[in-house]
């Protein structure tokens, strides 16, 4: 298990490759890359509302700990052989990568489920805050109920 919070970009291919390098028991690596979209902010329609940049803030120490706890939970739920989480912070532009999660397992079902589980929790529980910049100015993003719902579906059962 390895968790990083960093300003630097990452190389998804190298990270995916590292999870199975030198071993012959990994049958599946599910992964996810999240990117900055140039979407308009919720409820906005004018071109001036398009996101020009985004700044991600975190709580150094607590954020890393939160990500590690999420990974430990995933490891308890599914049979995993390796997990890699990278989350960027700082100012990012549309098209930039924000987050990377990759999960290695013997079987694809466990890899997919754990990868999506980590992403869902990461979007709701980990201490990150997003500020969007548009031509109208900057504004902190409100917590989204759809993300809470996505994370909530894991609480009852696998």
């Amino acid at each position, binding site marked *: 298990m390895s968790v990083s919070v960093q300003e630097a970009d990452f190389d998804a291919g190298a990270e995916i490759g590292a999870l199975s390098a030198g071993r012959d028991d990994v049958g599946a690596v599910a992964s996810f890359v999240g990117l900055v979209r140039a979407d308009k902010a919720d409820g906005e329609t004018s071109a001036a509302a398009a996101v020009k940049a985004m700044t991600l803030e975190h*709580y150094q120490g607590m954020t890393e700990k939160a990500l590690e706890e999420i990974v430990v939970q995933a490891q308890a739920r599914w049979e995993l052989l390796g997990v890699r989480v990278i989350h960027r912070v700082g100012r990012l532009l549309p098209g930039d990568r924000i987050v990377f999660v990759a999960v290695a397992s013997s079987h694809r079902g466990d890899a997919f489920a754990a990868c999506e589980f980590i992403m869902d929790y990461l979007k709701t529980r980990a201490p990150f*805050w997003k500020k969007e910049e548009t031509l109208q100015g900057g504004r902190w993003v409100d917590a989204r109920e759809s993300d809470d719902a996505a994370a909530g579906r894991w609480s009852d059962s696998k």
Partner: protein
Amino acid sequence: MSVKILFFAGLREALGSGSETLDLPAGIATVGELRDFLAARGEPWSALATTKNLRVAVNQQMVGLDTPVKAGDEVAFFPPVTGG
């Protein structure tokens, strides 16, 4: 011994401060009471009382407002997290 207090995101900007160190005032036993103490300083600190769904962490663990606070703790106030 004192408490270290941290503020993040919109709250940090509203307060114009990311952190402060404070000698824990007498009579303050919980993080809720600490928040009220800070908010009572007036503008801009009243944002601590008006921020919707204010979150608190003590020593990097999310807690409720009735959680005890003691000298040496790291107490963080922030708005709901918005993920990556």
